[in-house]
């Protein structure tokens, strides 16, 4: 492994542009797609170089454009990128959710068609899961798909379709058998958003941003070959995709420890510090310590799960708690940041506040969605109670 680490580091040093070794604000995250806009040219250069090595999807098989790395090698790549402060070249639902599911459940043709464009960032995907009447009770979804010869005709209304207005394709849960029990009449469809019947509409959120949309589907024609898995068996795939989604959301706390993130302790010291570099208010200090310790223990638990997986142990029950714990911790962190900053943490825009202060305000508001999206904290507790503890319905 020392060779791989040294080679990886040398390659990163030679290929990662200096502008891509800086703090990445939310607005400069690269998600790819046909309508991708790059604030700086280096973003595209960095994306293309990483994609050419398959390192936007390090562990995916090489035959589909992935990096073909082992878990251990991928971890080394991640560590070296963090150490050099390299930005993550590409993020999105294609990489974090759809890709792994297609690798597991897709046909060979579906993999060859859809996975390489995800790796390269050519196609941006969004998620058609929730509906106005199907939130935590996702399986009660009503978007209807009727098989008519060689295609499905789809009609319905999806909501919380993050970035649908910037996306090219949408993976959707649709009802294909309205007479079956609710979990047994659902299918998983891939839908090209170029179809004029697909209309996304952004929703303005409490943070002022509009990352979420609602998406209307009206007489959308979808080739029958875009069905993933068997007809009416989409719920199994839906749940597996949610596991990937939750893993991604639960990783939020880990990303905050990344090289450029401003530590909560430093903010608390700046606004409420004393002369010996302590947080002066003992109550605030105690609460910051309690948070830091919980976050530390959570990171150790993620590491333990990774070590258990590397040692070949069967996947344990730990992953069930990561989404719940990671998001609850992230919310706590922003609450403490705001509290420590006092009035300076409550600015909306303008010159009276630093860029970080304004960013924290918006991120505080955004963080409230963490414990709702991808299954609420309450749903996660239900899942742990049922699947891990075996408590009865």
């Amino acid at each position, binding site marked *: 492994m020392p060779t791989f680490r040294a080679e990886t580091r040398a390659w990163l040093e030679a290929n990662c542009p200096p502008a891509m070794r800086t703090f990445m604000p939310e607005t400069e995250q690269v998600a790819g797609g046909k309508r991708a806009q790059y604030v700086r040219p280096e973003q595209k250069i960095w994306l293309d170089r990483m994609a050419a090595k398959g390192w936007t999807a390090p562990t995916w098989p090489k035959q589909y454009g992935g990096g073909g790395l082992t878990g251990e090698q991928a971890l080394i790549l991640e560590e070296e990128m963090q150490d050099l402060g390299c930005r993550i070249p590409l993020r999105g639902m294609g990489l974090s959710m759809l890709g792994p599911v297609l690798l597991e459940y897709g046909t060979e043709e579906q993999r060859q068609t859809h996975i390489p464009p995800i790796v390269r960032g050519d196609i941006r995907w969004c998620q058609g899961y929730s509906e106005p009447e199907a939130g935590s009770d996702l399986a009660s979804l009503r978007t209807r798909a009727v098989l008519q010869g060689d295609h499905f005709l789809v009609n319905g209304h999806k909501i919380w379709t993050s970035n649908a207005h910037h996306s090219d394709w949408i993976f959707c849960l649709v009802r294909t058998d309205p007479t079956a029990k609710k979990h047994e009449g659902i299918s998983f469809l891939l839908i090209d958003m170029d179809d004029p019947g697909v209309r996304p509409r952004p929703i303005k959120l409490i943070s002022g941003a509009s990352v979420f949309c609602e998406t209307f589907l009206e007489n959308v024609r979808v080739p029958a070959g875009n069905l993933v898995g068997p007809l009416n068996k989409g719920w199994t795939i839906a749940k597996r995709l949610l596991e990937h989604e939750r893993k991604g959301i639960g990783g939020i706390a880990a990303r905050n420890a990344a090289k450029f993130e401003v530590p909560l302790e430093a903010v608390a010291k700046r606004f409420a510090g004393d002369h010996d570099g302590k947080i002066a208010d003992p109550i605030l200090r105690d609460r910051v310590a309690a948070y830091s310790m919980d976050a530390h223990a959570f990171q150790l638990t993620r590491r333990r799960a990774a070590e258990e997986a590397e040692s070949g142990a069967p996947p344990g029950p730990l992953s069930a708690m990561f989404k719940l714990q990671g998001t609850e911790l992230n919310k706590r962190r922003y609450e403490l940041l705001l509290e420590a900053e006092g009035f300076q943490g409550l600015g909306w825009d303008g010159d009276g506040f630093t860029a970080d202060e304004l960013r924290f305000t918006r991120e505080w508001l955004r963080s409230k969605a963490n414990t709702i999206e991808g299954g609420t904290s309450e749903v996660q507790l239900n899942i742990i109670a049922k699947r891990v503890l075996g408590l*009865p319905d």
Partner: protein
Amino acid sequence: MTLILSEEARMVRDTALDFFRERSPITALRKLRDDNNPDGFSRDLWRRMAELGWTGFLVAEDDGGSGFGMTGLAQVMEAAGRTLAATPLMSTALLGASLLSDAGSPDQKADLLPSMLAGEHIVALAFEEGARHAPHQIAVTAEPDGAGYCLNGQKTFVLDGHIADTLIVAARTGGGITLFLVPGDAVSRSRLSMVDSRNAALIRLDSVAVGPEAVLGRVDGGAGLLDRALDRARAGLAAEMLGSASEAFDRTVQYLKDRKQFGVAIGSFQALKHRAAHMFCEVEITRSAVLAAVSALDMHANDAAALVALAKAKANETLYLCGNEGVQMHGGIGMTDEHEIGFFMKRSRVAQASFGDTPYCRDRYAGLMGF
């Protein structure tokens, strides 16, 4: 640092789990309590533990131990925590053995270690003097007296102090703290009856004269020794508390499945499910922190002290939670002495106060982390 157990450590864990389940279930603690057993533990059980090598995990092979380390000892302590077994693991195998191993002269080691490792000699560390954990506030004095010293003052909450054959006493000397080996019968001592039915003692030192050979380590060099020993104790106790929390949690989840009200298992109620799932998360997070702490201690890692503070704080919080929720979720039966769940709650409070409660550990962690 590694967060998964080696094959050897897993074997120790499995042996220890079977051992305590068979030989020292909670009924054994109840019997010690109800019989007013003056020792507060079973000497026969302790000798059997010694035969298994558990007394020598923190002693180097050259000194007759196995040097297996904190990770190994933590497996035994966690298993003991599952059945709330009252044994001198903390006083003798952890604190006594490691302090002698760390700082003992060849004569002191030869004099004490063989009988300690054989389970025949109990050692207790006397350092607390007040109601709250404050290892740096020491008023007991050791005045020079001829070639030796004369000790005066009072120690409290001394684990196994009333039956210890040897006490390690932390006392103030001219330029700092010094540790002294004091024969148990040289002091006046009385057992403190605690809510967890485990051992603790009040110790009075009235002009106790000791020779120069009684000094453990360097004169005025005791504070560092004490700090390192207390970090090991915090990690070991955190492991024991993790075992107790896991057991209280497992028993409570089983009760939620067995107990029927309104015609259904009470574990089908969401109000209880969510609290049970929360406890599960806390137990698992605590396990990670304990594994990290003992591993860091064994590897002499730079962040060992912070990880120990983290492990003890999490163990405090989690055993508190599982003890309290255990009683509440068992309902009326949980309030009875006949049922065993209450023993976990009683033990939790004494364990929390020992070697640093949660505010103490948070303050220590924040200080070590620079805020």
